[in-house]
């Protein structure tokens, strides 16, 4: 870390490092509506997850997934891909919607 790097520059570099780890094909193409406060369903609706990946991430708890993995009915690569994709979507969701959330308030101020 460069000497005397400001906290803002560190923050920016850290965010870049983190965001570079999200594959382009896992980025949301469109934002949820401006007034939308509930985003739980977006991972299912956004089109990035396949039907199988939606099932993997929604139809099981951890014990259920482990049964499928231990029996060989599901492969770890499929489970891991599904979860990583969904985590990437989850991560962006809150980010996009927050910058949404502040816009109406800014327009009141300006």
């Amino acid at each position: 870390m460069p000497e005397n790097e400001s906290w803002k520059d560190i923050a920016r570099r850290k965010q870049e490092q983190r965001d570079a780890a999200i594959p382009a094909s896992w980025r949301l193409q469109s934002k949820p509506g401006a007034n939308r406060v509930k985003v739980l369903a977006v991972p299912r609706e956004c089109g990035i997850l396949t039907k199988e990946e939606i099932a993997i991430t929604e139809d099981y708890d951890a014990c259920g997934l482990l049964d499928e993995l231990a029996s060989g009915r599901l492969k770890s690569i499929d489970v891991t891909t599904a979860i990583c994709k969904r985590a990437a979507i989850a991560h962006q969701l809150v980010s996009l919607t927050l910058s949404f959330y502040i816009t109406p308030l800014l327009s009141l101020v300006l």
Partner: protein
Amino acid sequence: MPCGENPDLLSKSNCLTEIFFDSALERARELDAHFQKTGKPKGPLHGLPVSLKDSFRVIGHDASIGIASLCFKPCKVNSTLVDMLLDAGAVLYCKTNVPQTLMALDSHNNIFGRTLNPANLRLTAGGSSGGEGALVALRGSILGVGTDVGGSIRIPAMCNGLYGIKPSHGRVPYAGQENGTIAGAEVLGIRASAGPIAHSVRDCELLMRVVGDGRAWNWDPEVVPQSWKLQAPLHAQQDSQKPVVVGVVRTEGVTTPLPPIARFMDEVANTLRKTSSTPRVEVVDLDLTDLLSKCQSLANAFFSIDGANHMFDLLEATSEPLSPWLRTRLRRRPRADLSRVTELQARRTELQTAFLDVWRRHNLDAIVCPVAPHPVPEVDRWNTASYTSAFVLLDYAAATLPVRTVRPGDLKGEVEEGKPLSSWDKYNRELWTKVDRSVYLNSPLCVQVVGQKLMEKKLLGVMGVLDKVFRDSRDVGREQAKL
């Protein structure tokens, strides 16, 4: 909208801090190859992705906990629990957001921004394991691991309608955590614990079982040598139909629960009393205000032993400002001296001893109480963790159990007239009187279920019983609504 935040710096709010999808996918392929070759899973967590709070150390990645001066210093050693998860066959793929200093009930810091509640972006996702809470809620994680010293597993679990357990100290390995303290400091104060945040009771049990069977006492000197099998269950097999004795505690005597929470606790007590599920539940109404009212100030005194000096050193290294919520709440104070720490420890032992009388007298299996004296509040409006910190002070095993969500009928009722019990109580009332209550609609209503020290297996047994009662009563409610 939280005031005082710079919109330019807000652009990256989120739940993830460290992302290692590539190595996760590689690991998944290795595990599949192993299974293909041997026909057997690598361990009890074979192939399962598990998310981690940012405070866990993972080799090659930061454990910055959202502090600038801790960034770009990748860890050279894993936390003990991380090694155990890997030995069990888990896939690690990310770490999640926390508040600056870890001592806040919202998850915001200058490096990664803020984590919001995906079920309602106006509400907090909780803290300090807020990133875990939001990620598990969105099912970007099926099993998450957080830590808790004042409520940091139980509060995000409540905010996101999830199950979470804060075990006692010495059950789940805590060695190798980054929590912004100097080595040895934690031993003088209150011990934090790591624990699960998940979608089911059995998933919480899964983590506790894997840890118990992993013989962590060979790696972390603080862990007691007791495998899962040897830990005491709720009932011995021959007593499996004995009623479960639950003490319902409605208030800790410093901050009175708001009307929706007070009514909810009555409803919980009635539901448990009337259940025809087996085993039956015997409900004892308990007034523990005499003892509980002493806990908050004592817990806070323990949290203040270092006077936040080490944390301020870390922040001032890059002239980092305090997070908005902390600006009015945290400042450098003199470190406590030895006689002060000794006095606090004596008071703590006294309280722990007095509490044992409650368990003995009523032959309790568990205590059920609120997680907080209010519903899930808006961002940065959580004020005190007294309902959760009490049980870390006492070193009990304590959990969050989701029951239902807030309905329009829950928004009725007014706070009692008369002077507030405390400044905390005054602030708490404003979460009802100075707010548009409709913001609470559909937010989770959860109970806290508390067991005795190191009795996590028994606590999980109680949680399983209560969870079934609540589910059965929801099903009955739905059936009746259809008629």
